[in-house]
């Protein structure tokens, strides 16, 4: 790809490499050739014919965007002849624009550049007037379109959703969504399988596809580079501003993890920052009534109550739960507060309920818990194995990249009970019974062992403990595994061979691995496979947890864990202790703190009196909600800091408003360990202070002054205390690429690929684990297994996405049920049913879906009204206490309308109406 080639364009020497076209080489050299249909994100197409060129020694005027460079070629792009041709092509393009409309800016600019002042065709036929505003976020206006098909190609080549096509042919050919040329052209997008990723809108050169926010408020006048605050992919965006308001969020082409792509939530789901019910001032509750109070009063009160509790009951009566949605700096400061001011390690974050099992599993085997490879390595992989993750919905930009790889022919294995989008595409889909990961992974290991597929040199050089693993997988024959997991033995054999022999097998995994009774074991069993086949420490391989929240990686990295200090440093390390003392002036508490579920037990037991929760809606998203709410009610003084009056906030004594990611500076660390900047684009409303400033204020009031002028100073402090961040500083983070930790010293370029030559412990460690059944298994009374997880459109507790137009797309949690079960139970799509677990009862509408297997049900947990998590038990992974969200036993009952009280009925009717209309 990089063999340097020199060509001459318009008399200038232009360096190029094989793979370049004349167009791309010219562009890189800053020589602009006009063109509408080409894009750096799309394969050469050659439809607009504006980029014509002349090549010396060749006949004709080929399109430069489809002409590969050849050493020594001499190209002209602006001869009189070419300009005339271009003018005539432009004239054709403009001739089809309907009269009376405003010419798209791109065409105006073209006309100007080629000197076209009028169209000579008389009464030419023009484009059909078709508008499609059915997508909540953008519109299509055929009148402004030039049929370049960039949108269609974006949907195919970038997003892999194929929601668009060109319709018809000849003059009338135009893009359309779904099948709308046979129905109502105005509803194409809404009726199609479009996932509103916005790639088509971004590629559109004319504004025929345009954001509704731009239509309403105009094009942005300036942009601020920042990072998406939803999921762990960490897409880079340019926030477009106009008149002090955000009007667009456009994914940046030089974004290191997204390369110009995005998903619905990041691209369009940011408007919650302007939601009417955003918290604007601190609120104090007495009984059932809320009272807005001043910031001064609120901070004083908080400091007072916490001081009181500490004095009365000691440091261990206080705890904090930090937000994985917040910045590294905020998280670090919150940890510093709990350790230096409160004097305890009772701090946790939502990593607990998410990838804590990954942390324990990978720590024990590899000695480091983060993704071993970079997202970009998906392009190097020769096989991709997705275990218990649904990236096309949960990490859509990574999902799209996996789809792209698969389209290039890279084989895909998916291990998931559900037929997710990737499972449908996969070469092999292993639909295991929920909770049987260890059995299946050991079964794969058994085949590898028996068939001599192990990478002995790697094992010898880089690992120890092999025998432990061999012993564990020995009894797991394919037939035994089939019996336990339900996956046909033959599929198991095929998958084992594919994974072991591809040459570079890359694993991504998600909550289907971790949120189990034996989640840590599952992760170990997975790491064992990678170790056994040498799929670690090389490009295109690795074990890559798809960390969930935008900054869940960072929150844990900077020490919001009860068991580790920043950088996963042991709390009882004396050297660290003295450094901590030197930097912070306070001792580092060495006793391990409570994990979130322990906090609930402590609260119920009356041991925990004060709790400060930032940006985490435990009262909706933790399992066994009745217990959690009960525990929260037991707390003497509960402080919740959030953007909205969340379910948890409703139980608080004091609620503090928070500033959103668009309103503050800081850094997030994405799922590939990449530390990236967020930048303040707009002021927070109503003088709201970012979370970190609130922490400083309270700390200061409690006698430990914290004063930082800017989050960069906090990062400097983190770097001093944390070897793996030693080389991180804000000036280095100005680079669009950010930095991937470990960054052990100032000049270090960061680490894209971990464990290249050695593991943190020297050698990696095989840990043999035996299969153990999940916490609950179906019984006669509760015959169904309920899986919970996410859908593309909404985000976790939904506080943010439910306050955007995403609600037009999905406005309710639904229960997915296999058609066979539905037929047996005589329920139809849209029916409301009652879901009963040993803990609680909830009502949900049913969707008939072949994504789930018979006997299994799936639902999301994004709407407080559905109260799904009250069904779940407190069962959790032994080692990490990661909750068993993925396996609960339930039964399904028809809803008997007579039984309902009036309130229920009204609410249900509302749900039903929303559902059916």
């Amino acid at each position: 790809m990089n063999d340097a080639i020199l060509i001459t364009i318009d008399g200038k020497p232009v360096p190029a490499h094989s793979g370049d076209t004349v167009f791309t080489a010219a562009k890189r050299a800053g020589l602009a050739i006009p063109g509408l249909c080409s894009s750096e994100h799309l394969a050469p197409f050659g439809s607009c014919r504006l980029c014509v060129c002349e090549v010396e020694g060749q006949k004709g005027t080929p399109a430069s965007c489809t002409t590969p460079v050849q050493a020594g070629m001499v190209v002209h792009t602006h001869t009189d002849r070419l300009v005339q041709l271009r003018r005539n092509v432009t004239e054709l393009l403009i001739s089809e624009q309907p009269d009376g409309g405003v010419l798209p800016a791109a065409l105006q600019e073209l006309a100007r550049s080629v000197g076209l002042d009028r169209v000579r065709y008389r009464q030419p036929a023009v484009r059909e007037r078709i508008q499609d505003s059915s997508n909540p976020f953008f519109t299509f206006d055929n009148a402004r379109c030039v049929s370049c098909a960039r949108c269609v190609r974006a949907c195919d080549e970038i997003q892999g959703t194929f929601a668009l096509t060109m319709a018809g042919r000849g003059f009338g050919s135009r893009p359309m969504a779904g099948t709308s040329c046979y129905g109502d052209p105005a509803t194409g997008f809404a009726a199609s399988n479009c996932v509103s990723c916005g790639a088509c809108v971004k590629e559109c050169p004319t504004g025929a596809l345009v954001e509704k926010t731009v239509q309403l408020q105009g094009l942005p006048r300036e942009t601020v580079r920042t990072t998406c605050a939803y999921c762990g992919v960490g897409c880079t965006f340019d926030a477009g501003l106009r008149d002090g308001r955000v009007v667009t969020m456009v994914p940046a082409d030089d974004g290191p993890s997204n390369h110009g792509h995005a998903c619905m939530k990041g691209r369009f789901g940011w408007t919650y920052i302007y939601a009417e019910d955003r918290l604007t001032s601190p609120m104090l509750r007495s009984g059932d009534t809320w009272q807005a109070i001043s910031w001064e009063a609120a901070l004083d009160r908080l400091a007072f109550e916490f001081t009181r509790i500490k004095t009365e009951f000691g440091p261990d009566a206080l705890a904090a739960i930090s937000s994985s949605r917040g910045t590294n700096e905020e998280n670090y400061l919150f940890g510093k507060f709990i350790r230096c001011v409160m004097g305890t390690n009772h701090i946790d974050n939502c990593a607990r309920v998410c990838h804590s099992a990954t942390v324990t599993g990978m720590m024990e085997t590899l000695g480091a818990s983060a993704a071993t490879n970079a997202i970009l390595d998906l392009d190097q992989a020769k096989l991709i194995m997705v275990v218990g993750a649904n990236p096309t919905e949960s990490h859509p930009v990574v999902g799209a990249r996996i789809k792209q790889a698969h389209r290039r022919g890279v084989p895909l294995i998916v291990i998931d009970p559900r037929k997710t989008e990737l499972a449908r595409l996969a070469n092999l889909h292993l639909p295991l019974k929920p909770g049987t990961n260890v059995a299946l992974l050991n079964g794969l290991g058994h085949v590898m062992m028996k068939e001599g597929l192990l990478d002995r040199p790697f094992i010898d050089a880089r690992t120890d403990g092999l025998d432990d693993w061999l012993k564990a997988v020995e009894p797991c024959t394919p037939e035994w595994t089939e019996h336990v997991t339900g996956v046909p033995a033959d599929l198991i054999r095929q998958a084992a061979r594919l994974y072991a022999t591809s040459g570079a097998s890359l694993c991504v995994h998600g909550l289907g691995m971790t949120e189990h009774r034996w989640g840590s074991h599952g992760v170990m069993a997975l790491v064992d496979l990678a170790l056994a086949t040498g799929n670690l420490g090389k490009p295109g391989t690795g074990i890559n947890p798809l960390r969930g929240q935008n900054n869940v990686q960072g929150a844990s990295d900077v020490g919001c864990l009860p068991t580790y200090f920043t950088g996963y440093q042991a709390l009882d390390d004396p050297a660290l202790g003295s450094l901590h003392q030197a930097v912070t002036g306070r001792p580092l508490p060495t006793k391990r703190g409570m994990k979130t579920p322990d906090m609930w037990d402590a609260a119920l037991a009356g041991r925990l009196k004060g709790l400060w929760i930032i940006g985490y809606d435990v009262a909706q998203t933790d399992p066994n909600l009745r217990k959690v709410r009960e525990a929260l009610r037991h707390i003497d003084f509960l402080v919740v800091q959030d953007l909205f009056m969340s379910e948890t906030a409703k139980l608080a004594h004091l609620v503090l408003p928070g500033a959103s990611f668009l309103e503050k500076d800081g850094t997030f660390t994405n799922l590939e360990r990449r530390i990236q900047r967020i930048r303040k684009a707009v002021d927070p409303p109503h003088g709201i202070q970012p979370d970190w400033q609130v922490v400083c204020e309270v700390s200061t009031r409690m006698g430990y002054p914290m004063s930082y002028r800017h989050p960069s100073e906090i990062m400097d402090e983190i770097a001093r205390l944390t070897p793996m961040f030693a080389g991180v500083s804000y000036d280095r983070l100005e680079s669009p690429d950010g930095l991937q930790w470990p960054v052990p010293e100032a000049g270090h370029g960061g680490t894209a690929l971990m464990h290249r030559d050695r593991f943190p412990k020297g050698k990696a460690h095989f840990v043999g684990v035996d299969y153990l059944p999940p916490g609950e298994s179906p019984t006669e009374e509760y015959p169904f297994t309920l899986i919970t997880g996410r859908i593309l459109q909404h985000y976790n507790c939904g506080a943010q996405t439910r306050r955007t137009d995403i609600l037009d797309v999905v406005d309710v949690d639904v229960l997915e049920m296999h058609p066979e079960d539905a037929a047996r139970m005589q329920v139809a799509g849209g029916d409301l049913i009652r879901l009963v677990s040993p803990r609680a009862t909830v009502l949900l509408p049913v969707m008939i879906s072949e994504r789930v297997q018979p006997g299994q049900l799936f639902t999301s947990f994004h709407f407080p009204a559905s109260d799904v998590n009250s069904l779940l038990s407190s069962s959790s992974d032994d080692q990490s206490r990661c909750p068993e969200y993925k396996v609960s036993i339930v039964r399904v009952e028809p809803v008997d309308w007579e039984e309902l009280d009036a309130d229920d009925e009204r609410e249900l009717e509302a749900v039903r109406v929303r559902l059916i209309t």
Partner: protein
Amino acid sequence: MSRIRLYLSNDTSSCAAGTERLVEAWRKRSDVELVRTSSRGAFFLEPMVERESPEGRLAWCRVTADDLPKILAGEGGIPVSAIPFLSMQTRHTFATFGVTEPLSVEAYQAQGGLAGLRAAQAMSPPAIILELKASRLRGRGGAAFPVWKKWDVAATEEADRKYVVANADEGDAGTYCDRMIMEGDPFRLIEGMLICARAIGAGAGYIYCRQEYPAARATVQAAIRAAGEAGWLESGGKPFVIEVVSGAGSYVCGEETALLESLEGRRGVVRARPPHPAQSGLYGKPTIVSNVLTFATVPNILARGGSWHASMGTEGSRGTAVLQLGGRVRQPGLIEVPFGLTLREVLDQFGQGMADGARLKAVQVGGPLGSLFTDAQLDIPICFDAFAKAEAILGHGGIVVFDDETDMLELSRHLMAFVADESCGKCVPCRIGSLRAREILDTIQRGRATAADLSLLTELGDTMKATSLCGLGARAPYPVLSALEHFPMEFHSRLQR
């Protein structure tokens, strides 16, 4: 009593001319045996009935059912060898037409079929390509690209799969030789494809046949079955599967990249090149797309040697030209002659002048995208290079003769409307330009156009030629502009005053 064996062509055109009616009428008779053969291509004589005689086949022409007694009596038949239209030709690819039964494996071999494939099987793949190089065969589908070069590219490309695709879309109005081959000598096409498969290492073949040719599709399908049963369908020791795929009424799907899209089941939209299909074609694999006639020409080359083929024709165009004469000529039909005869010679010697009373006005060669020739230009030799020099195309060898009643403005409008209808819609100059050109011609017809519109038409034509992505848009202006050049008054006289 032995029955008298009569030969009647089973070709679609022969049937349309009436052979089918003859068969219907005579089918039940016990004194005749009807044998259905391929057609000799002298369609002006169809329906034609032949029987054996000591001087070779005798033919009865333009036969009606009532002529049977005469035929049985042997009255009035003329020796086929005495039909000048046929005897003046140099038939190689079409040598056995009118003689053999299309689906008879034995007859095919008896007439020398399979000799090419056997020869190829005795050669290494590079040697086959060298033989083609020596033959100097150029593709017959329109672009006239040296066949060996394409095969060489596909042969050297590394890939797990390669394909051979016969372009049987034969979209040009006025052409029918591919149809005749598929209906009349399908094994020759299959043999050519097998030789190609061996040369490049392909494992599967497709024949993309236009939907308007149901009989050709059925015959080729039957031939594939028969060839399979005869054990011919293998290449490099592995089975070689050939599938017949039907088009769906799109002219651009004859363009090789659009054809591949269509073969993959998608919209038949042209792909930008490079990569060329020989590098990356069907499903991204190296693929040879060649015309049916091209494939059918290959077996003889392997059987008789490349130099044999190179010994015929002109400097740049070796071998025989297969021309299809249509329109207002007296003797329309298929003509195979060495390259080099002039257009006038072809029209005079084979066409025998115009149909009753008509006077020649213009000749279009090479289908709807081909240039128009006037009487004064007919001395151009039939050869790729002479045509290229005249900015004309031989295309697929279709020659349509228009008489003096033809309205050249209407003809131009008709041709441009065809392009506008058939444009795949991908590139701007063709998608919009062809419609604009048609609109201008409409305006002239309505008497509303000015001289400025005519010069705009010329400039538009120039832009389409220079900037269109494929031959449809790039060639579309030629017939119109050549009509304008040769018959300016027919345009100017209709301008607004």
